[in-house]
């Protein structure tokens, strides 16, 4: 039984293992432990982004503003750091930005009932615009060294502190979502929103909460991005939403909601962020990165949706057939 539940995560993990194996066959230098571990270390920004948007996707919605939220919170945090504020203050400001945007998204989707793709697309435009206004179109540079060096600090021999933190957060989030009563509400809302309301689950509140969490995770990703890159351009995080969504789908989440887990999303994030590295190892230009990401996303979504449509049609037909079934004729 537990096995059935975990199949999707295991499938994603096997996909990742198979990918590493295949690439190594073509270029054996990929098989070095350092290279493989760096695939994980480098996925830290996407791990946070994917875990964040996983909350939203589990409830059956979508958030395409996370790339812009990452950019804005990184710009806000980095500016404070540059101007001499402490790391804690910068992180707090970034998280505040993420939470506010998340709250706006949540209210628009859950309370105003606007389709989430449209609403968050609009928010994405607004937030991206604010980055330009806030930074006046300039890069945020000259970040303090103790901040930028943080991204290199190692927890163990090869694993960075940041990735260790990401794994910890994913594990905690995963346990909350799958083991606690309230955590299961997220999946329940995505599985059957109307049914959830009927058994007393506050579906609207859960959706708003999922957007706020998504915003917070995106802003944490923004701060990590700032530390790793060392400067913030106005286009920081552009297009990251597609990669994060693709990571979730690769990790076994269903875009219709109710299926998947944070663990799956984080495995998907490693696959996604490894694609450009893999391309280099295979001797291709990393220009193909986005095309491959989009193609993977489309492939999985098309397969999932066709399977789902087929099941829906089959169930409907079965019910209709039962309705006309006769056994020896009913006595009138």
């Amino acid at each position: 039984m537990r096995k059935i539940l975990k199949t999707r995560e295991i499938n994603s993990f096997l996909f990742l293992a198979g990918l590493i194996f295949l690439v190594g066959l073509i270029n054996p230098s990929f098989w070095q432990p350092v290279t493989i571990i760096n695939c994980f270390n480098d996925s830290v920004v996407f791990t946070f982004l994917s875990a964040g948007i996983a909350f939203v996707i589990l409830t059956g919605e979508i958030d395409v503003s996370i790339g812009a939220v990452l950019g804005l919170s990184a710009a806000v945090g980095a500016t404070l750091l540059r101007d001499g504020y402490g790391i804690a203050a910068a992180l707090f400001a970034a998280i505040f930005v993420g939470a506010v945007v998340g709250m706006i998204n949540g209210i628009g989707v859950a309370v105003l009932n606007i389709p989430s793709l449209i609403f968050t697309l609009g928010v994405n435009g607004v937030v991206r615009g604010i980055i330009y206004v806030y930074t006046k179109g300039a890069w945020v540079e000259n970040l303090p060294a103790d901040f930028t060096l943080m991204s290199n600090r190692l927890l163990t021999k090869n694993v960075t502190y940041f990735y260790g933190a990401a794994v910890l957060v994913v594990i905690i989030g995963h346990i909350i979502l799958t083991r606690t009563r309230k955590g299961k509400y997220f999946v329940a809302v995505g599985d059957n929103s109307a049914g959830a309301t009927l058994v007393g689950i506050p579906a609207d509140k859960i959706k708003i909460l999922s957007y706020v969490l998504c915003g917070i995770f995106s802003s944490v990703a923004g701060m990590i991005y700032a530390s790793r890159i060392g400067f913030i351009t106005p286009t920081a995080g552009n297009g990251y939403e597609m990669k994060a969504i693709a990571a979730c789908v690769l990790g076994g989440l269903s875009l219709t909601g109710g299926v998947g887990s944070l663990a799956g999303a984080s495995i998907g994030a490693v696959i996604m962020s490894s694609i450009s590295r893999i391309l280099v190892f295979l001797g291709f230009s990393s220009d193909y990165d986005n095309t491959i990401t989009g193609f993977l996303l489309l492939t999985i979504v098309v397969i999932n949706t066709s399977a789902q449509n087929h099941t829906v049609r089959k169930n409907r037909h079965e019910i209709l057939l039962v309705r006309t079934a006769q056994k020896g004729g009913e006595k009138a």
Partner: protein
Amino acid sequence: MKLSETASQGHSLFTATGITKSFGLNSVLKGIDISVGEREVLALIGGNGAGKSTLMKIIMGIYQPDEGRIFVAGERIHACKPGVSLSKGIYMVPQEPMLFPNMTVEENIIMGFHEKPAKLRKRLKEIMNEINWDLDIFRKAMSLSIAEQQLVEILRGLMRQARVLILDEPTSALTFDEVESLFKIVGDLKKKGIGIIYITHRLTEVFQIATHVAIMRDGVITLKGKISEFTRDMLVKGLLPQDCEETKKQETNEIDYIGLKPAFELIHFSGYGFWDINLKIYPGEILGVAGLVGAGRTEMALTVFGRDKTISGQALLEGMDVTGLSTRAILKAGINYVPEDRRLNGLFTISDVAANITSSLVTGKTMGRIFINKKVEYEIARRYVEGFRIRITGLDQLSGSLSGGNQQKIVIGRSLATGPKLVILDEPTRGIDAAARKDVYGIIHKLKKQGVAVMLISSDMEEIVELSDRAVVVYRGRIRGELKKREITQAGLMAASFGVGEGKQVEI
């Protein structure tokens, strides 16, 4: 008076008195009194639009009644929001169970409770032992049959200590064996002392499991009491309008069928939702297809129209086999379908009236080869607007802003613009006012005069009686009776629709 009544029903689990509800000018419930006691199964029967679902929504606190009181075990409750009735021990098992498909049976049942899972599981096991029902609680809900899903819903209710269970048409998607086991479970629940409101469309079931019966029609209870006091025919009478005997058929001449070839014919036509349908429609004839919503008539029409797969049998249009053709080809062959839900299926609400009427011609070449010839479009549209008395401010008015009746006239008008041989009208007058209804009847008669074969699907028995030259009744996807014009009566149609008799006049 109402107070003394409730005082005398102190033993009852659930009582509703004097419930009224209107939506705008439309009064849906006009003073409903029902009650269920311990170990009672109240069968609530009513045709489409009788107000059953509105009443249930009021009981569950989803709607507010305009007047009336609800008592649970003698205590008055103010069901102002969905949770209240639930907490007082009323649980409704919806027609389509509202489960979480990706969760297990157990997760589905204990979702929304505040106790510890271990404690809940223990209680669930106890309840399952008590009603002697076994199911793997680790199975996913999506792998369950409808019958099993219903049982999960019943368990949800029992976990909430429900004393009154409402079962909304529970057997409509069950096989015969499943119906048997459901009846057994209802029997067990009854022994437990639970009161059950059993909503159904099948009169035959009522005598099998109900202890009491109540019949609803047009927002009133027309008949209620112990089941032993009634016969089937008495129940059928309760379903009919009181002035039913007075409604007169329009005295038009019967069609002379001698030497006439059918315009349309279904031979052993089977598909999803209907089975072994045999019928003929002649040119200039209106064939009434009576029955209840969900009997399979819409599915049959949609399959003829190429929207779903045919399983076996044939559909012939003027002798030509049109079985399994695409909707495009069917339209071209001369069959037109006017759907039941105009907004969903029929009307382009944000287009203007003219574009709507001529939209089925857009694919042809009448209106210009590449660009739409506005002049031709308006000319065709004007002809129909005048002919059908569609009330509009101008041909450029947006169709979404029209009343339901006028929208319907546009949708029918549009189907005529193609010069069809067969027109299938699905509930053409549902939800439209009397004046518009008269206009729609006028259009249907006009079709008839032009020699078009008309299939009139309607749950309004009066409409079938008034318009049809012949009629068939569909019950659970099969034709239950074929009637000549002089044999068509509301009572006969109603009885057959509920699964009693063959549609010919029953003795009342």
